[in-house]
């Protein structure tokens, strides 16, 4: 193992070099006490999945912090409703912690109902709510009875697992919202699962599907509205995009509503084209297949020459990846391959064993693979592997810049849509911009001038 100094002994099993075989990487477990981990919590996972439901009310039951950190931070765009961009919480105080917060929660729901007419309220119970013994199930039941709307508990105390557990909680909440009394007739449309409409990506994909003649029933959850979500059981097929967060939901929908699913990815030209074809074949309509072929052809002809212009600048550069889910990491590696770039380090917060398996086949033998990495590890390996650019989230950005490494946000703060053909162009342009900015020319110290 290289770089021993930067690695906690307990962490050694969560890091590996691509060449070593055996049991693979240790993942899907809690962070080590004392680690400077980049990992978010159960609540965060649940919130990011549900937050894009634009006409829902999201009420955080707990002290103020959890609510204030998640106020309008995910760049999920809405086509009209803006309610989800407010931050609602019960702001629990000391007396509530001593005497219980149930009354306050009831009153907060009443106050929402006094001035608004939401169709659904999600109640997120954060860390201390379970500990102080609030029965939020009962509060939600009573509120539903009183107001005739859906009030859905999302029990997401941070300590009860990782962000992934939160995705599950969110999926359960969605199931609770969309499960009909009787299964509706199937239409020929599809649902999109796991796109959160960051920078408008859901719109791009919906547009592609429209172009090839596939109708979208429900967006889950980017730019979603409650009424549309409720139509989801009538779809004939589920397209699962962010597999980490949504496979669980897809499986449940398959069981309960008899909707089969396929996994798709719209990052990169290859993945986008493959996915469109797979969708067309899954829908099985001859005309759709024809149209998909033609559309892909057309887009490739348009985009590839443009990409080749960037390729000159990108070829041979070394990329480091640190993202939330394994699926996204895999897509990114493929994209870098398309650009002629080499991925030298890959880390994820919540990747599964299967993901890491795939990753280790996609990267070079000496690439570093990390689970739930801390800044010291990221630094050590980025330097050692000589990365030219890091793709990550908000906490990684300043780290990369301090090291003088270019950066691209592939998370909540992405600046442009990165999905689909135009997303691939944006992505290439963004990494090109960051890696070839004149700023790198002037950052040497005065003594090096």
């Amino acid at each position, binding site marked *: 193992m290289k770089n021993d100094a930067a690695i906690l002994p307990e962490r050694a099993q969560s890091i590996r070099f691509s060449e070593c075989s055996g049991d693979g990487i240790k993942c899907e477990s809690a962070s080590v006490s*004392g680690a400077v981990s980049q990992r978010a919590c159960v609540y965060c996972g649940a919130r990011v999945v549900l937050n894009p439901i634009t006409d829902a009310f999201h009420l955080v039951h707990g002290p103020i*912090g*959890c609510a204030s950190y998640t106020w309008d931070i995910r760049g999920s765009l809405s086509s009209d409703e*803006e309610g989800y961009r*407010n931050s609602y*919480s019960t702001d629990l105080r000391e007396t509530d912690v001593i005497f219980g917060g149930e009354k306050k929660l009831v009153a907060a729901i009443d106050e929402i109902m006094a001035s608004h007419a939401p169709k659904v309220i999600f109640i997120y119970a954060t860390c201390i709510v379970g500990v102080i013994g609030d029965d939020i199930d009962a509060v939600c039941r009573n509120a539903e009875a009183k107001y005739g709307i859906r009030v859905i508990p999302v029990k997401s105390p*941070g300590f009860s697992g990782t962000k992934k557990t939160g995705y599950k909680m969110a999926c359960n909440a969605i199931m609770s919202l969309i499960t009909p009394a009787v299964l509706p007739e199937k239409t020929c449309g599809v649902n999109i699962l796991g796109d959160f409409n960051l920078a408008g990506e859901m719109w791009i994909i919906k547009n592609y599907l429209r172009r090839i003649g596939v109708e979208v029933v429900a967006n889950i959850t980017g730019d979603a509205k409650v009424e549309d979500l409720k139509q989801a059981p009538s779809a004939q097929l589920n397209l699962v995009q962010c597999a980490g967060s949504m496979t669980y939901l897809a499986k449940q929908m398959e069981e309960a509503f008899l909707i089969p699913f396929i996994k798709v990815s719209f990052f990169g030209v290859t993945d986008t084209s493959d996915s469109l074809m797979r969708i067309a074949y899954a829908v099985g309509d001859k005309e759709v297949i024809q149209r998909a072929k033609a559309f892909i052809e057309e887009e490739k002809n348009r985009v590839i020459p443009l990409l080749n212009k960037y390729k000159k600048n990108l070829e041979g550069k070394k990329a480091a990846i640190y993202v939330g889910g394994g699926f996204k990491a895999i897509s990114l590696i493929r994209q870098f391959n398309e650009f002629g770039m080499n991925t030298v380090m890959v880390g994820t917060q919540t990747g599964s064993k299967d993901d890491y398996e795939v990753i280790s086949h996609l990267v070079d033998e000496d690439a570093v693979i990390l689970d739930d990495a801390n800044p*010291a590890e990221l630094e050590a390996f980025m330097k050692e592997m000589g990365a030219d650019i890091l793709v990550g989230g908000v906490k990684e950005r*300043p780290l990369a810049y301090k090291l003088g490494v270019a950066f691209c946000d592939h998370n909540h703060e992405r600046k442009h849509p990165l999905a689909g053909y135009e997303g691939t162009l944006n992505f290439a342009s963004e990494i090109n911009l960051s890696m070839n900015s004149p700023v790198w020319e002037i950052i040497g110290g005065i003594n090096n001038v």
Partner: protein
Amino acid sequence: MLELTPKKLSDRSTLRINPIKTCQPVGAMYAALGVHQCMPHSHGSQGCCSFHRMFLTRHFKDPAIASSSSFTEGASVFGGGSNLKTAIKNIFDIYDPEIIAVHTTCLSETIGDDLSGYIQDAKVPEGKLVVHTNTPSYVGSHITGYYNMISGFIKYLSESTGEKNGKLALFPGFVNPGDMREMKRLMKLMGTEFIMLPDTSGVLDAPMTGNYTMYPKGGTTIADIRDLGNCEMSLGLGELTSEFAADTLEKKCKVPYKTLPLPIGVENTDAFIMALNQFSKNEVPYEIEEERGQLMDILLDSHQYTHNKTVAIFGDPDTVLGMAQIALEMGMIPKYMVTGTPGAAFDRKAAALLEKFGVEGCTAKQAGDLFELHQWIKNDPVDLLIGGTHGKQVARAEDIPLVRVGFPIIDRYVHSYLPIVGYKGAIRLAELILNALMDRQDRDCEDEDLEMVM
């Protein structure tokens, strides 16, 4: 944007909408980052620590490090003692700080973890230190957590040896590294020897070097924190933020203290400089007088553009009061002053300020939120908003210019490097405010009224 905000005010005693505060640990983390070679440690679940680091990173655009006890289900039932013990060992083994500053979270507070006990039992390597403070988020706000952490350092470390060191202890208030730099510059100009706690300059505005260091050059040293106990007196800037720390030092080491408002605006900066003058007995140097004179010149030149303009100010209590002071000095009317941090002292101070300037018809509220401020503005608008990034929704909804001051500012750059305190800071504020108002005038006026010379 924000069309859900109804104009009609309703009784809303339990629901918090669009907060102007966050939780204690974030303040504690910020304070701990202002100590040299210190690892802030969050004793609770992983998520809190991640959120707090992200929040600070978004504001400072610099890496904010901190470790977490990473509670799991088990810890939430049996207590977090063993998590903390393991954490302390791991942190010293791998990240090698000089000191670990532990703060609690809602969870560890609610399950009743005994931090002092855990720390006493922990194996701490020779020469290294572990301190702690309690930061239950259901009390106060990030401001509370900030001064709790400062007091934690003092309680654990400051000592009076009986021999005075001739220095002034300065508690800077909840301000940016750029402000701390300015305070230090002014103290140096005044020939005042000082120890400032915390000092995040050189940590959260550290230069780019091509290397990432967990512990940049800045921060108050442990030796200096110890030596605080030998200071002649302490000065707490930001009365609602710094008094607690100053009081802790007085109780522990008999260092008398005085508090002053944050030195924002003319009068507040005058008071700070006069306090330094009384302490060091040194004359105010020409350099400072010159800056003050420049500020006067600017305020005179431009007063007709600010006179009688109404402004809504939101943010942390001492920042809001300071901004109200300078607004009043510029002839503006601080129509609404809101802080999310609870504490009746804010209302009293705001009322006193208004009385001093003989201004009526303004509203001040502690423990308020942006939703309510938005409702007030809908009913009776203002010319200008002053506060952090979260005001941008209101600014857009009501088409009011927003001058970004305070915490957090997560959608702009540079703010944390430059001061708002001191005469220099006031000059910067005057520029920000004037530009906002005058840009607006240029945007809104008729073609024939567009003035080339203003």
